[in-house]
């Protein structure tokens, strides 16, 4: 038995909702019962990334991963793993390709292809303990900056690293800092944008939950370089655990002298507060976010003046998102050159992606920029669920686009994706299979943008509504010949004339699906068919007399009683199309595959 083992239990929001928290208690009880408390410790960590298989736990130092663990499994894990040094086979991950169980994390493809810089501590340390952060070189970046570097040197280092903003547009971070630093003012602010509103993205939440001190340290370094003495973290109220962990971390950092006045005796002051957002997607936009902190409706304003000149309460302000800030300590600790070895020529470093949708391994993955979509989806993600066929990947949330199968070998970086009609955005990757209708997806995103439009500028307010109405009609089989031209015209106008990013990028899902999946639109409009069999209004159900065994299960379960037939009189079962609401219950209930959908 190895000395000093650690059991790392993922206690992020995903695994917690799969039942991770009681497991920690049961583990502690069992360890005490077995008298192992001197050599074994249990740590509730942040997100380990493998949400699909949660609750997950890792035994250190052997790096053994157990998946879908329940309270009942605890005694067996301790008995076998900690006392006898054996594996609990049934809780190991099964590799889909070889169909064999794999135990060690380095053999698991989900982890093996990743390169974790920002997620370096996530899932490894207890985020509620500052000493665990400092034990893994935490706060060494700010110490290095304060003890031996001028603010200019810090900024040069960040510029040299080539780091670009991870929140969406990919603007060079060092350059952005420079604008704010150059503006003369008695007061400057820095802000961490944690208003992660993109549906399908949860990396910022996971970093705040799993490694909050890295964000604080990044902001400290930024504040020092820019000359700011006050900062805010603007976090969504929908992320209670992130707010809680960040609150604990700020308090600990204050007590340890990393936040407050005269930090580490350097004369540099910095105070950090959390601002809880109140639920508005548009507040992810810089000027709207600042209006929200000021207590106003979160509506964007015209730029210039840019926040670097006139931001929060009219003072120069610099805003970066969680992932960007979290990169900074690593750049300072290890140097710009070290950072520059990862990624592509124009997109340096790594990017975290939230891998979701119809993929086998959902979760959070960090890969070097330039990794191909195919590697992310098929190697790390282990391919499509249920052996279905890949159709598209939606990348970059409501502002991004859907890319088809022949684009899978694209290297993921800012410029390549923008050229292809998508964007890195915040890094949500939603995988879609053959049963996903691309017109419905465009409609879904426009419904989102329409609801979240703040209403200030007409192109976005009216335009998103009109585009949604057209898409809604098409999915109902009421599309007109001229709809596609109208959509394209509207999309281009809205893109060019909207005030902020929300409006400017709202048409992207339409433009991308029109570019790559135009045939699906045409099938809806011309043939009144949905190729993915998704749009209810365009489906028709029928019963194959040959296959039907007249068991009457479909008729009994039909909510509108639209199926009739009789075994006794040998009357075949038929569906009354007039009454049918196309709910699909008959298909689900039929054991003989006699009901067909077209």
């Amino acid at each position, binding site marked *: 038995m190895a000395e000093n083992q650690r059991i790392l239990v993922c206690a992020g929001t*995903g695994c917690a*909702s799969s039942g991770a928290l009681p497991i920690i208690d049961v583990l502690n009880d069992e360890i005490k019962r077995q008298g192992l408390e001197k050599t074994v410790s249990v740590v509730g960590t942040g997100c380990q990334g493998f949400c699909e298989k949660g609750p997950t736990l890792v035994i250190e130092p052997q790096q053994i991963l157990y998946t879908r663990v329940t309270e009942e499994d605890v005694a067996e894990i301790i008995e076998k793993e900690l006392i006898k040094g054996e594996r609990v086979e049934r809780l190991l991950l099964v590799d889909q390709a070889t169909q064999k169980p794999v135990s060690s994390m380095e053999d698991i493809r989900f982890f093996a292809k990743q390169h974790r810089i920002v997620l370096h501590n996530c899932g490894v340390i207890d985020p509620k303990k500052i000493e665990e952060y400092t034990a893994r070189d935490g706060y060494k970046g700010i110490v290095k900056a304060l003890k031996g570097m001028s603010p200019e040197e810090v900024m040069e280092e960040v510029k040299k690293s080539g780091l670009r903003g991870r929140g969406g547009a990919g603007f060079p971070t060092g350059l952005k800092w420079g604008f704010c630093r150059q503006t003369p003012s008695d007061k400057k602010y820095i802000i961490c944008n944690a208003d*992660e509103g993109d549906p399908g993205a949860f990396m910022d939440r996971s970093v705040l939950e799993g490694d909050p001190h890295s964000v604080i340290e990044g902001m400290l370094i930024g504040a020092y370089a820019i000359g700011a003495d006050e900062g805010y973290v603007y976090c969504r109220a929908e992320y209670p655990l992130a707010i809680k962990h960040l609150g604990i971390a700020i308090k600990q950092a204050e007590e340890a002298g990393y936040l407050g006045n005269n930090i580490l005796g350097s004369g540099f002051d910095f105070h950090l507060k959390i601002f809880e957002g*109140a639920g508005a997607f548009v507040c992810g936009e810089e000027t709207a976010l600042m209006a929200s902190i000021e207590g106003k409706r979160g509506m964007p304003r015209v730029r210039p003046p840019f926040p670097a000149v006139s931001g929060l309460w009219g003072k120069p302000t610099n805003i970066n998102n969680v992932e960007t800030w979290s990169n900074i300590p690593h750049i300072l600790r290890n140097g710009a050159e070290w950072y520059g070895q990862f990624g592509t020529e124009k997109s340096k470093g790594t990017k975290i992606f939230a891998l979701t*949708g119809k993929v086998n391994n959902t979760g959070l993955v960090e890969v070097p920029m330039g990794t191909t979509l195919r590697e992310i989806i098929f190697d790390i993600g282990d391919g499509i669920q249920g052996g279905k066929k890949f159709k598209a990947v939606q990348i970059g949330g409501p502002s991004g686009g859907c890319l088809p199968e022949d684009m899978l070998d694209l290297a993921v970086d800012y410029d390549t994706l923008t050229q292809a009609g998508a964007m890195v955005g915040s890094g*949500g990757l939603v995988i879609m299979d053959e049963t996903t209708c691309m017109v419905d997806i465009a409609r*879904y995103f426009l419904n989102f943008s329409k609801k979240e439009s*703040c209403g200030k500028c007409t192109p976005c307010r009216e335009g998103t509504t009109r585009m949604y109405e057209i898409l809604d009609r098409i999915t109902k089989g009421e599309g007109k010949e001229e709809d596609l031209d109208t959509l394209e015209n509207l999309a281009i106008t809205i893109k060019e004339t909207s005030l902020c990013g929300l409006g400017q990028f709202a048409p992207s899902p339409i433009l991308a699906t029109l570019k790559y999946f135009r045939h699906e639109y045409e099938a809806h409009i011309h043939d009144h068919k949905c190729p993915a069999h998704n749009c209810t209004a365009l489906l028709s159900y029928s019963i194959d007399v040959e296959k039907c065994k007249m068991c009457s299960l479909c008729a009994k379960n039909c909510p509108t009683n639209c199926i009739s037939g009789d075994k006794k009189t040998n009357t075949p079962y038929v569906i009354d199309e007039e009454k049918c609401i196309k709910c699909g219950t008959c298909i689900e209930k039929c054991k003989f595959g006699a009901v067909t959908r077209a």
Partner: protein
Amino acid sequence: MSTACEELVDPKQIKLDEIIDKHKHSNGPLIPILQGAQEVYGYLPAHVIKHISKATRIPVARIYGVVTFYAQFRLTPVGRNLINICLGTACHVRGGAKVVEAIEKELKITDGATTEDGRFTLEVVACIGACGLAPVISINNEVHGRLSPDKIAGILAKYE
């Protein structure tokens, strides 16, 4: 007399005043005050908005503008249990709409409404960030993942 005394020591009112005093002098106090007030009352009744207006000297119209802008604030009471159904992209792709249907059918209410007995309020939201477990709902901030319509009745039964 006794009723007047009770009114004077309304514990909710005392809490509200504490919240107002805590934030009143900081920059941009309105949203934190409204969030605190909603935590105390469960929603933002008209008299509370008027009281905040008087105490902070922010016009009622501006407060109302802020309240109606953000999804978090509500002007009507909420049921004992708040269900947030996620319809983010990942949940949409993995059949979130069927979960919505099942819940609406089970509780006989639609998005934004509260059941007659005040047991549940239903809200469809864009993303609660548990996409790895899609489709998901959260009830009173407790997340339930990997859902299918047939699991709904069992989950709802746990909440009184």
